[in-house]
């Protein structure tokens, strides 16, 4: 999240992590540029009125460099001419301040879902269902209670069904950059998830990472 107003940045970060996301904050363009070039983000929330480099130039630079991460512009500039410039500059969504945190969360969720190719908020894999909007998880219709970290792991795997996800990738996406990271905890989350889900949805690909798949289908 790129936002130069410190208090708003803190509140937004809190709102987003309450919504189940790991958030890194940058207060100005240079810092954001460094973060974006070193980390792989699911989505970027970008303010336009930034010190040093303005948000629009940053956006154009990223898109010119081939960055495909969905970007949501969150700005005080609300005229239609500015919206057109933002979207034509390569943004995927545009929100005008002030805003409701629920709306931001809903739009971020939809953005991430759309980029992974899902149209509805309900992600499914065989009997396993995960609703990104309500954070509701169920197996064969029976609801399952997950902690927020377990939910993040499962949600990340669900968005990438059938693909191998490495352990370090998982860590990057469930923890914010400055959080106390411990790669062993990922294993703990996976073990707990497997126990709670009951069926072998999560498969370990030796030496590479994890993969979520339909337990009825034979693995390769």
């Amino acid at each position, binding site marked *: 999240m790129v936002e130069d107003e410190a208090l708003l940045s803190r509140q937004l970060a809190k709102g987003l992590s309450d919504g189940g996301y790991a958030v890194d904050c940058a207060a100005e363009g240079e810092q954001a540029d460094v973060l974006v070039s070193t980390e792989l983000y699911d989505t970027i929330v970008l303010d336009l009125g930034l010190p040093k480099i303005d948000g629009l130039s940053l956006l154009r630079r990223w898109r010119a460099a081939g960055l495909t991460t969905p970007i949501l512009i969150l700005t005080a500039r609300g005229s*239609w001419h500015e919206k057109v410039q933002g979207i034509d500059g390569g943004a995927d969504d545009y929100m005008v301040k002030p805003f409701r945190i629920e709306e931001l969360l809903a739009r971020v969720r939809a953005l991430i879902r759309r980029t992974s190719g899902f149209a509805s908020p309900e992600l499914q894999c065989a009997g396993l269902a995960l609703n990104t909007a309500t954070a509701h998880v169920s197996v064969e219709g029976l609801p399952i209670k997950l902690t927020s970290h377990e939910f993040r792991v499962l949600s990340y795997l669900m968005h990438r069904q059938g693909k191998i996800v490495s352990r370090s990738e998982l860590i990057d996406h469930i923890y914010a950059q400055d959080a106390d990271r411990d790669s062993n905890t990922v294993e703990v989350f996976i073990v707990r998830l497997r126990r709670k889900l009951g069926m072998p949805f999560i498969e370990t690909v030796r030496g590479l990472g994890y993969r979520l798949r339909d337990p009825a289908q034979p693995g390769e």
Partner: protein
Amino acid sequence: MLRSLRSRLILASVLWTGGLLMALHIFSMVAIHHLPRFRPGQLGVPVSIAIAVMCAGVVVLWFSLKPFRRLRGTLAAVRAGRDRQIAGSYPTEVQPLIDDLNTLLADREKAVQRALTTAGDLAHGLKTPLALLRQESERAEVSGHLEIAENLAQQVDRMTRQIDYQLARARAAASGGSGNARCGAHESAHALARTLSKLYAGRALNIVVEIPADLHFRVQREDFDEMLGNLLDNACKWARTEVRLHYAESALITDDDGPGIPEDLRTAVLARGVRIDQAAPGTGLGLAIVHELADLYGGSLQLCASPSGGLRAILRLPVSDTPQPLGSRAK
């Protein structure tokens, strides 16, 4: 020719006086010597010369004062916003005055620009604190202070609407009707459709735009975007499946297949900042802004029922028929 107004006036008065003296002289000769045996035939030539000279004086005067009439016309054009400066050359006595007037106009324009920038900075500067206040209201709601949260959110909404509205008005008032403005409707409409289909990506809306490629309006691009953007956004907000924009009978017509607006409410939504549905934020305000902007440009906005079931918005603006320079047409 004589460039100085003074020399023109002198020439005019010399001609006039000469003619007058001649006429008086002849009149006195007639009166003194020929009155008992009056013979009009002999007087014909000098009398007509005298009249011709006097007429010449009047004509010269008329031509001398012509630049002032031209100036009045130019000033009216500046006032109406068709011109920014007083162009053309004037007699040497008037030219310094024209230069001063032009400097004054330029200063005034700069002052308006400065005021506008200040207003814009002020508005944008207020929006981040408002966003913060809005988050605070949500925090208050979470911690159980429902009434405080509600009041705070309401006031934040009111302030936001005021800022948006006044900002749009100030922008339009400054640029409103400036004559050399020219905006390509086709390009702007397609850019807006692109933007809206991204903003409403979750709704699978079909946005159809049918605008002639060579249609231009005498409107600033920013203001045109604001008007059409608000109309299309409002249509998208309510449409079930399709939003349509086309140009017919010299009007831009936006149709949606949503619920529409009841007839008795249609005038109300165009009034300042009325919201017919509190659930959809900003509704009505957008239409009121379009109404105001169109008015400033000497255009109009009408609402009626759409053949596709929802609301039809008819926007009329002054069309620019200035022929395009060859260079830009080739592009």
